[in-house]
């Protein structure tokens, strides 16, 4: 009995996992990342940007969440973002990125921004406590 229950749960886990991999994404046709985006993603990982910044609220707390920075009316220009990357701030050290690395990092952040919004609007909260999208 115990073994059967254990095996059943494991089988359900695998079925659910594959379902999540294939159907969880709400984007009907995700925008394919181009070479510049993939290169920027690599810079993001190699420089360990997630230790200080978040994407969709996941990551460190030293700097702001950057999910939708690229669509921000004041901060979303290439120049604005690159200035931070180039000189750092009193909190962010200068990571000595090359022009190429900064350009690809901006491409990556623009691609992330297009995947959706990180903030859940108040009107999306149902009375049962869940969200409605």
């Amino acid at each position: 009995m115990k073994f059967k229950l254990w095996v059943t749960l494991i089988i359900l886990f695998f079925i659910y996992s594959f379902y999540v991999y294939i159907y969880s994404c709400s984007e009907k046709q995700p925008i394919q990342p181009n070479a510049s985006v993939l290169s920027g993603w690599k810079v993001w990982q190699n420089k360990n940007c997630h230790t200080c910044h978040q994407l969709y609220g996941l990551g460190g707390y030293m700097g702001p969440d950057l999910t939708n920075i690229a669509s921000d009316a004041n901060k979303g220009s290439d120049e604005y973002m690159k200035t931070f990357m180039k000189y750092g701030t009193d909190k962010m050290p200068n990571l000595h990125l090359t022009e190429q690395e900064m350009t690809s990092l901006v491409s990556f952040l623009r691609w992330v921004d297009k995947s959706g919004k990180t903030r859940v609007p108040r009107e999306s909260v149902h009375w049962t406590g869940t969200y409605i999208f």
Partner: protein
Amino acid sequence: MNLQRLFIRFALVMLLVTVLAGVIASFAFLFPASFNSVLPFHQLRPVHASAALFWIITGAACCVGYFSGRQSKAFMVIWMITIAVIFLNYGFNNYGGREYWEFPAYLNLPLLVAWLFFMVVFLKRLPKDAPVYYWMWTSGVLFFLITFLEQNLWHIPWFRESFLREVTVQWKANGSMVGAWNQMINGLSVYLLVAISGNAGLAQKKKTWFLFFLGLFNLMFNWGHHVYNVPNSNWMRGVAYAVSMTEWVIIILIIRSFKSSLSAARKFRHLVVYRFISAAEFWVFANLLLALLMSIPAINRYTHGTHITVAHAMGTTIGINTMLLLAAFGYILDVDNLSERTRKWLQVAIRINTVSLAVFWVALIVAGLAKGYLSVDHPENSFFDVMKAVRPYLEVFTAAGLGVMIALGVIGVIYLRYSHERHSANKKEITM
């Protein structure tokens, strides 16, 4: 040298690195200008996070291997060497940039090989009357492998074609992996309770089996609260919400058994090993309650991406996992037969840790509430303004972190000092 003892020492060194790097990192967080030219926060955090991760997994695997009598030398050697190489890479600023798995990705391969060696030795057919802790250990060891592989699915280009898919799978794997090591560590706790009380029936009680299957069910399906705010399909959020709410049953069971837990605590209070288990019981209740509240999407909207998430992560890793692992190591090292003076030191350190952790935990929750309110309900606030408002609570958190470091440091050093092999007539080993 006895490899098993070396493995124990290695795990304890990981604990000491965790607390030391954690405290320095929290100072670097508060005073970045002073640290950025020497040891910036973004270099300290991977050391802290990786040391914590490896303290827990190494500790759990070490104790499970020891108590089951199924130890793989190849696992221990490859595992320790790979971790040493990981920290060497951090020294050269080589990172992999994944949460928890912050080292260059190719180092996952030797870790995988090592774990497979452990599994080959550990996994055996369980007899019909096998106690529940063997089921917990088996599930934990198996699911660590599954989630470790899942964590590396991003190497397949298809998973990177959508950022939403990639981030969802990453946090699905991370969430379930925590459940995997919890299975191993909770199994150790049941084993120790059986060993201390001499009552083998504890590992066959209906309630214990029920909690095992409920924990396994949640390991598999409740991870979705990590990605509630990611604009995924709604059904996924619903599944995670519904599954998470089943954990209220555990809260009810803890409250119902409070009286018997208290009498057991009085009966075994002279045992240092039991003191660790008792401390962990309190943190199970507190962190489970916090996790349940965070799993309600309407509340998660405020807590996600705030210090409340850190409070939960640190509350469980320090308050539950570390306490139970120190109990298990204490049992292996037979600390209850050390001198009266040394045991007193250990008991005082447990108290200091509990009090410091309580302050640390509350400070993070208050910081998270402030950040959540100021950024969600008042999006006009800049990130700078929000962090300025949160800073006093983070100063309290850092001060309390010093207390945690001192307490766990004292325990770690005492354990390291007495980690050579000693024989005791009082210690009971359980065989299956």
